[in-house]
């Protein structure tokens, strides 16, 4: 078969992304119609910059979801029903790991050798191990979009839980915590990655200890959140705090120690390593941001009012200060997901914490950069993908900032 022209490649890629386009169209039309009732999210659709950013971010989110989606009817125990394939959406045209020897380093649009039953083209060419660049790019999106937002969330939990008391209470607590935060920030990030994300560290159990400490913060945060709010209503308080603790420690046992009794929550050793390193690097910055905002807000009148009412410290921090700090925090959250994506790419670029066949963008860029001047496509494709995702997040943050400043 003849190789495809660039127009045909683009058209075929457009068709592969069809489910993404449909979801985007649905989402945007619904949001547009109801934008006046959707708060800050709705206001995003007033700013062209924010809309473009949101479009790009959602494009990659849907791509990650539909990269390789197979939904079957769940098999019901005791009823011996055959599990039906409900539907099957594949954006990826090939398996991210399968190799077709003749396709090594082939240019975009090359046709597969005759006699193969798969998708007849490598849309964006083959890499140095004869794998499909397009499919690997699509599958790589999934890894990034699972780890980056989750890690940023955890970093936020840690940063908020420590930053609130540091800013509100001040004094020794503040001095000690700030010293620790500055200590981590004084490390060159890459040195820290090299020290934290090695098999030796994993063997010595330091990752597990770090994970055990860092993963505790979300539970503590949510528990204090409910406790301070429903302190006066013990029944409700016990219910919420109890639920938090049960679900929290269930997930905790699975994520940090891989010891979930039912096996719902689990994380591979490599992923845990990367995850912990990224959370560890991000939390001090979040801590400093939260602390700075709290310094600013704690002298406001409504805080003084709550103090005179005799509210507890944690209530004031979590229910008076935090909601009023949400504007800058939401904006920074978007930016930070982008930064985390860059950090994950850096880790992949140095081959840290990823298996060699992993399709994540950083390691694909690194693998492709060796033959860059002869076969640029294996490195360029993930590079542009990563750039567009971070760009989308930055634009989204910019749009949110503009809209939240407007009121």
């Amino acid at each position, binding site marked *: 078969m003849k190789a495809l022209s660039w127009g045909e490649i683009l058209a075929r890629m457009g068709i592969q992304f069809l489910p993404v386009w449909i979801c985007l169209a649905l989402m945007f039309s619904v949001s547009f119609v109801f934008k006046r009732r959707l708060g800050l999210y709705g206001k995003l659709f007033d700013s062209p910059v924010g809309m473009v950013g949101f479009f790009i971010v959602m494009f990659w989110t849907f791509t990650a979801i539909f990269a390789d989606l197979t939904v079957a009817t769940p098999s019901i125990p005791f009823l011996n029903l055959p599990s039906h394939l409900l539907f099957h959406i594949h954006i990826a045209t090939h398996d991210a790991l399968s190799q077709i020897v003749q396709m090594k380093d082939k240019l975009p649009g090359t046709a597969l050798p005759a006699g193969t039953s798969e998708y007849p083209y490598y849309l964006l060419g083959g890499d140095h191990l004869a794998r499909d660049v397009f499919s690997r790019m699509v599958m790589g999106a999934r890894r990034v979009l699972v780890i980056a937002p989750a890690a940023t969330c955890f970093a936020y939990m840690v940063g908020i839980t420590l930053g609130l008391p540091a800013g509100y209470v001040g004094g020794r607590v503040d001095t000690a915590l700030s*010293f620790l935060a500055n200590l981590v920030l004084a490390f060159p990030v*890459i040195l820290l990655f*090299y020290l934290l994300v090695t098999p030796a560290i994993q063997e010595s159990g330091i990752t597990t200890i770090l994970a055990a400490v860092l993963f505790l913060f979300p539970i503590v945060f949510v528990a204090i959140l409910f406790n301070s709010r429903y302190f006066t209503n013990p029944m409700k308080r016990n219910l919420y705090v109890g639920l938090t603790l049960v679900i929290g420690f269930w997930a905790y046992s699975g994520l940090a120690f891989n010891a979930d009794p039912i096996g719902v929550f689990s994380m591979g050793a490599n992923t845990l390593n990367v995850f912990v390193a990224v959370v560890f690097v991000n939390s001090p910055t979040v801590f400093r941001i939260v602390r700075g905002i709290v310094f600013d807000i704690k002298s406001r009148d409504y805080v003084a009012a709550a103090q005179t009412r005799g509210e507890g410290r944690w209530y004031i921090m979590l229910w008076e200060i935090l909601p009023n700090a949400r504007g800058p925090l939401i904006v920074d959250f978007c930016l930070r997901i982008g930064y985390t994506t860059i950090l994950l*790419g*850096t880790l992949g670029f140095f081959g840290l914490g990823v298996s060699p066949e992993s399709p994540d963008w*950083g390691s694909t860029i690194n693998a492709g950069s060796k033959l*860059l*001047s002869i076969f*640029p496509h294996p490195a360029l494709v993930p590079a542009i993908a990563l750039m567009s995702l971070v*760009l989308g997040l930055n634009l989204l943050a910019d749009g949110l900032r503009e809209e939240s400043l407007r009121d």
Partner: protein
Amino acid sequence: MLKFLLRRLGTMLATALCLTFIVFYLTNLQPNLVKLAKTQASARMSDAQVKSWLHDNGYTDPLLTRYGEWLGVVPGWTGVNAESGKPMGRCVNPNAPNAPAPRYCGIVQGNWGTSTVFRAPVISIIGTRIGATGLLMLWVLIIMVPSALVIGILAGMREGSRMDRGLSALSIASTATPEYVSGVILIALLSSPMIGLPPLLKHWGVGTGSPLFKGSATSALDHITFDNFALPVLTIALYGIGYIARMTRASMTEVMTAQYIRTARLKGVSFRSVVLKHALRNALIAPFTVIMLQIPWLLNGVVITETLFNYKGFGWTLVQAAQGNDIELLLGCSVVAVVVVLLTQLISDVGYVYLNPRIRIS
């Protein structure tokens, strides 16, 4: 002021001590030491041999003692080589083992130890590598700072204008392009004979089709030319420009709405002169801090770029040391990095006070 400086220096010292101890601890974990023994002596050593090698080379003493030895506050270990019977020790010169050795030899005495990867004194390795990286950083700053300031000022001069929108979009795009992405794109576009600009130029009949720039900066260590140094400098600068430009823009827009600017405009001073004489001076205070704090951040970019372009500077050395678990070289590198980070913080704080007379250090 003096008290402030002393307190800052004290914090710096404490931070540096904690940091080097963490690096020391992490590089001295048992699995890392076993790996080190196997790469240094022989890959096929038995567990017992590894143990005795570690013992003979002073790696089995308590961690704190050995950290003290590295610092130079605890006497260096001494021992006798089991085979040859010659005295060994931290402070003993392996080429002249019988010569009298000093008791203390740590970083306080100016002895940074020996690199196990490069088999050379750490201090000389770091010295030469830092020189190379310093040159790279110098050019990055020369390119990055003026262009970022100009972009930021032009964008912030008239908030919301078309120029502002365009330049802001550019700076957002630049902050979204980490070094490993921009480096790859630049190499692919400018230094490949097959694709990108060179073949296009040939097609138009302008160039010969040979690469415009070199994709590797190894030769820049001997002599820097435009075609082997431009791409690495541009790669690092691109990522930083956006951030500094955005900070400058924010500061500029804030100054431009100030009362005294309006007064000047109402007096009939030309826009050009308002920007250059009145606004600029105040608008540049905040970017100064940002630029200073950007320098340690550039260090990351340097590591990535030096690896990508194979430029054997400080960042490249750091990667080699980390990959080979070269304990003393890594410690040396982290000392340098920490000093850079903390010094730039100090300079930015002190400089901020001098630039902005409204702030007084108590």
